[in-house]
């Protein structure tokens, strides 16, 4: 075990996979050379594996996706880095028309076992285009997997599993978590399933479901509420698409009271789908209406600190929403 940040865990996971399999290659803007990405996620990889396996691309997101698709077709485990999840929008055509459909439209003759890394999320004064949760753009596209780890242990284990997956995976990394979280991470080889949600805190009174940064708020609030005898179950979605319906529905049934938290806008977020699934599968096990706590329905968070704070779901709101639900 060694103490690692979420960002270091991702770097380490990629490095281990590149060592294990020479078919693993990584590229994107600023990814190669000595820079190693705007956040440093690929630092040291070009030096270790050479600048053919870890290389810079021109500033062309559609092409980053296209290179990955092409390499995937001939058996490479290509990792394309998008500098920010917001910047994936020029690549949507590649990802939806090619990546997501290649296996299905050729009945498995041609496949693209690739990974797209996408740093997302707010709270870093990034304004409109460095803060968004773009996962809903790719959600509901059978053929694609969308995942996001919420802690350093999962970050390393899930990036390794994503690279080994025979399906294309969009790997969302919460930017706020990059350096915020430090935890024990095994130095040896391990993988964490990329198709399972995880109960990160067992509880019997209410169920809180979320992913990314908001989970940290939920875990803190749960400890606070425990002092008042309220026992909260906290579930990390992890596999955003396809959703691990079984774990989510089980956790909802267990307490009968469900709070869904997301950093995204309230309407049209992933949580809307989770609410529908729980309604379909567990309506008569519920003791309260499903609650959603989310960002407001405005285009994005502003740059000004006051605007960013107003947009983001914060710890106090989470605590209050959890308490209200417990008392319902």
């Amino acid at each position: 075990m060694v103490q690692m940040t979420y960002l270091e865990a991702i770097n380490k996971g990629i490095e281990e996979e590149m060592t294990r399999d020479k078919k693993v290659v990584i590229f994107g803007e600023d990814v190669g050379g000595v820079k190693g990405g705007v956040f440093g996620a690929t630092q040291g990889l070009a030096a270790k594996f050479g600048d053919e396996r870890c290389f810079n691309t021109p500033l062309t997101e559609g092409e980053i996706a296209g290179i990955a698709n092409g390499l995937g077709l001939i058996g490479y485990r290509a990792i394309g880095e998008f500098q920010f999840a917001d910047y994936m929008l020029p690549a949507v055509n590649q990802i939806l028309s090619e990546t997501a459909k290649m296996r299905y439209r050729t009945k498995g003759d041609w496949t693209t076992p690739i990974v797209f890394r996408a740093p997302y999320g707010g709270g870093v004064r990034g304004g409109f285009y460095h803060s968004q949760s773009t996962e809903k753009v790719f959600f509901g596209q059978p053929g694609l997997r969308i995942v996001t780890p919420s802690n350093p242990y999962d970050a390393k284990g899930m990036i390794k599993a994503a690279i080994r997956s025979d399906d294309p995976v969009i790997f969302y990394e919460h930017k706020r978590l990059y350096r915020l979280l430090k935890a024990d991470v095994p130095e040896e080889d391990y993988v964490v399933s990329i198709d399972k949600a995880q109960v990160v805190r067992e509880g019997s009174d209410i169920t809180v479901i979320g992913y990314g940064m908001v989970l940290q708020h939920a875990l803190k609030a749960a400890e606070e509420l425990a002092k008042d005898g309220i026992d909260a179950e906290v579930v990390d979605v992890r596999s955003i698409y396809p959703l691990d319906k079984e774990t989510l529905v089980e956790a909802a049934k267990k307490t009968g009271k469900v709070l869904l938290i997301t950093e995204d806008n309230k309407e049209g977020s992933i949580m809307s789908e989770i609410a529908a699934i729980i309604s379909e599968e567990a309506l008569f096990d519920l003791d309260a209406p499903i609650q959603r706590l989310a960002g407001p329905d405005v285009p994005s968070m502003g740059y000004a600190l006051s605007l960013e704070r107003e947009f983001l779901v914060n710890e106090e709101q989470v605590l209050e929403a959890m308490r209200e639900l417990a008392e319902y």
Partner: protein
Amino acid sequence: MEKLKTTGLSKEELVQAYKDILMGRRLDERLWQLTRIGKTSFNISGQGAEVAQVAMAMAFEPEKDYFLPYYRDMTATLTWGMTPKDIIMGSFGKDADPSSHGRQMPNHYGSKEHNIVSHSSTVSTQIPLATGIAYGAILEKSDFVTLTTTGEGSSNQGEVHEAMNFAGVKNLPVIFGIENNEYAISVGTKEQYAAKKLSDRAIGYGFDGFTVDGNDFAATYLAFKKAVKKARDKKGPTLIEMMVSRLTSHSADDDHTIYRSKEELDSLKEKDPLLAFEKQLIDEGYMTKEEMLELDKDIKAQVNKATDDAEDMPDPTPESLYEQVYAE
């Protein structure tokens, strides 16, 4: 026109080229017929581009090179190795159709066995994939060459430019073919681009571009032969624009009499490359008219047999709708 002798191809090879060209024409005529009698729902043809396509494809080594075609490239895929039965199975939507096992519309060619990569209908998304595959040749230290094609209308898509730019930057062994038939469905070149020649665009990406008369077998073959050698020698990409004719409507759902004048439609016969190639083969002493008539009979018989054989193949089972969404 240049003499066929300048190609350096043997008589047998030139006769084979003629067979492929004639097969492309007769097969396409059959596909139209099948739409008209309601046995299939769609066809989009390359009539008028057969000579260019065969000349292009003959410059490659299909057993090791990759081909990412577009929807008019049926005749090129025949030269590359697909069979008439393969093509007709695609039109009938049969389970054994190598292009997509009945999942995509007709004319979306692909065959894993022949290194022909599946393509989407959103035009030009295959171009970035070609650069990814071509980058694989660098990683593998292999001398395989990648060919990708598109029409002059779809060459205006952003992804084409992203891909060509990357190919220039990395000096990739890839050849971009543009089949310029002067129409994007009903919209002529004046409304599609202001450049004098599309091949001039290559200058902006730092590599060579040529425009050839696609009706001229020798000129087209030699242009591709040179480009393939250059790519195999690791000297970078080439853009080749082939000027061809579109003898038919855009597709089975289009009627070109609405937007092409009577004079233009009447003149199409003069632009038929099949007739020009036949005349050239006779004039230069490779074949006689009688041999051609004999061959035509044989090819029509082959098309009839392929049609019957393809029609007899099983349809995909309804249950197979659920297969190969994800790795199994």
